[in-house]
């Protein structure tokens, strides 16, 4: 500091001015810290989303190939794979031996193609036109994820295979399409045929069951604890003990709830493993404390003067609470509850404990059929090394995030609507 403030006429003493400078500096520093942390978290979030999108977005499209297969009756055997391989070899004009057959079959989704062949078995002899997905390796190649300049030993496609794929592409037999299978197919051993149908349906059923159980019980419990439970004497002690334990319940690791579900619902009640009903029951237990705590906080924020006024007008306690406390707390209760449901949607660990990690190749038709859930499906797919699985795992994450965003959006819209009605 210079002497300048001394010389100039000032409204405050030099010491005051100096202190003011320090206070200003502290404030500026705090602002900077705040901005830095906001930028850091936005950057982390952006990086996360970008990396997921970079790997995952390509899974929403898939390459299909049109094949004109000359499936001759005389070369036909009972083995569809062999017939397919021979037909492919014929298409490329190469002599078919075992090694060539193996490499050819690795170009298309062999299981899809042989299924189609089997369906058209009676037409064998004629030229058969098939449109099938290419294999996961070929798909990755067409998406530019296979570096053909690397030595053949370091990639999973041989030089011969790459030449064949290029020929398909040159003859415009390959087409990139929207990957409908990702949403309508259940899980599969072949990445190009694997989809999220079982996982999406499983998650929807789990969240609906959990919500239907936990929402009324949780909100009811919160209203009871807030307005009706005894507050004094032994009853009051019991109430407080209950509240402490509900808070503790919220802090219990999720996997413990899975253990509980395994022990109670599966071992004692004899429900089947891997079914959405058990998943819903377990996640209802998981959501319950979250909903109670959020609803309690919302109810406590309503001023007592409103219920007191209602009581002094001769309302019963029930009328006072339900006419005045609950409507005002409703938007916040709803928000808390939907956050609880969103948490349940992303929950993985307890579902692993009750066997929802099973490999399910059928779309569940009821909550009693085996199913997986979205986060579990992500867990399963991310465990496989192939690029196609990594791509699909990221795509599944995008789907999960999209579902969560929709749920949160619905929560916000509902809350706004309730609040507008309240302010009349």
């Amino acid at each position, binding site marked *: 500091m210079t002497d300048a403030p001394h010389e100039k006429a000032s409204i405050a003493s030099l010491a005051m001015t100096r202190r003011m400078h320090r206070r200003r500096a502290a404030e500026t520093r705090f602002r900077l810290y705040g901005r830095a942390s906001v930028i850091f978290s936005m950057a982390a979030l952006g990086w996360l989303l970008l990396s997921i999108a970079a790997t995952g977005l390509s899974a929403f499209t898939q390459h299909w190939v049109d094949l004109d297969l000359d499936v001759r009756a005389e070369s036909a055997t009972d083995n569809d794979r062999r017939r397919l391989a021979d037909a492919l070899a014929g298409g490329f004009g190469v002599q078919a031996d075992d090694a060539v057959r193996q490499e050819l079959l690795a170009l298309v989704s062999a299981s899809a193609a042989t299924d189609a062949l089997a369906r058209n078995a009676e037409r064998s002899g004629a030229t058969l036109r098939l449109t099938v997905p290419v294999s996961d390796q070929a798909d990755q190649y067409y998406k530019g994820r296979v570096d053909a300049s690397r030595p053949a030993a370091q990639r999973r496609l041989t030089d011969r295979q790459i030449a064949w794929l290029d020929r398909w592409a040159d003859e415009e037999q390959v087409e990139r399409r929207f990957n409908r299978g990702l949403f309508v197919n259940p899980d599969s051993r072949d990445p190009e045929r694997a989809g999220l149908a079982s996982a999406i349906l499983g998650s929807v059923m789990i969240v609906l069951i959990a919500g239907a159980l936990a929402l009324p019980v949780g909100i009811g419990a919160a209203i009871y604890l807030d307005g009706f439970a005894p*507050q004094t004497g032994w009853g009051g002690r019991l109430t407080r003990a209950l509240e402490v334990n509900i808070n503790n319940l919220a802090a219990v690791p999720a996997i413990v709830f899975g253990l509980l579900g395994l022990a109670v619902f599966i071992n004692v009640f004899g429900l089947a493993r891997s079914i959405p009903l058990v998943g819903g029951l377990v996640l209802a237990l998981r959501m319950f404390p979250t909903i109670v705590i959020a609803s309690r906080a919302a109810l406590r924020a309503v001023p007592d*003067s409103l219920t007191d*006024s*209602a*009581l*002094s*007008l*001769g309302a019963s306690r029930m009328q006072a609470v339900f006419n005045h406390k609950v409507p005002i707390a409703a938007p916040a209760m709803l928000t808390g509850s939907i956050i609880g449901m969103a948490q349940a949607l992303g929950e993985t660990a307890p579902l692993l404990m009750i066997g929802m990690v099973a490999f399910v190749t059928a779309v569940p038709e009821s909550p009693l059929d085996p199913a997986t859930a979205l986060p579990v499906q992500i867990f399963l797919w991310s465990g496989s090394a192939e690029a196609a699985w990594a791509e699909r795992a990221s795509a599944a994450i995008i789907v999960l995030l999209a579902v969560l965003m929709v749920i949160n959006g619905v929560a916000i819209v509902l809350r706004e609507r309730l609040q507008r009605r*309240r*302010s009349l």
Partner: protein
Amino acid sequence: MVEDKPIKFSGRCVSVHYGASRALHNVDIDIPDRNVTALIGPSGCGKSSLLRVFNRMNDVISNARVTGEVRMDGIDIYAPDVDPVLLRARVGMVFQKPAPFPRSVYENVAYGPRLHGLARTKARLDMLVERSLRRAGLWDEVKDRLSMPAPGLSVGQQQRLVLARSLAIDPDVILMDEPASSLDPIATARLEALIEELKTRYCIIIVTHSMAQAARISDHTAFLHKGELIEFDQTERLFTNPADIRTQDYITGRFG
């Protein structure tokens, strides 16, 4: 005490405890009907506790305990067969801070009559709402804005609105707990004029921290100190010729 009016409330040996602490101790009091009775005293003297005895709002406080006998029109209001909800329909209350429900002006006033089924038709309800708002001196100010949200009114209007709200259920008694403490002088003057009008119909008991206000509006005044009723007399006599030295000290501003 020379009385020409009938007694509305008579309390004998009334004590109020909140948990272990005693807020009111062995109070005997007879409150006349169609009269304004003021309860004065320093903070924490038990005047609000005494007020809440008359409509059993102490029951709402979880650890409160009321002992003794309180009769309204000769009926023991703490008898086991008396439902506090029905008692409160006859004993209205206005709180220190106005707490209008976050609904329209009309809905606020109509809430009580709806609770108790006082109006069978919409026209009757409209009539009841208008009459209550008129009695509370608010009708002219809000008659064109009955559907506007009540929290949008000024504090003075809100206080008269909650008064109208309690008048709508046609009580015998109106309890007021420092009703003017959040009002400006003009709104206070309006409220006091209103009390003056209302006392021809209702028994009014008012807690106030302002001795001037008690002197202006009340017919009887009770002075409480440390949970005990020190003196209860006609207002004029209590303020000009107090019997107890503590009353004299308080009204002359020596403490409190």
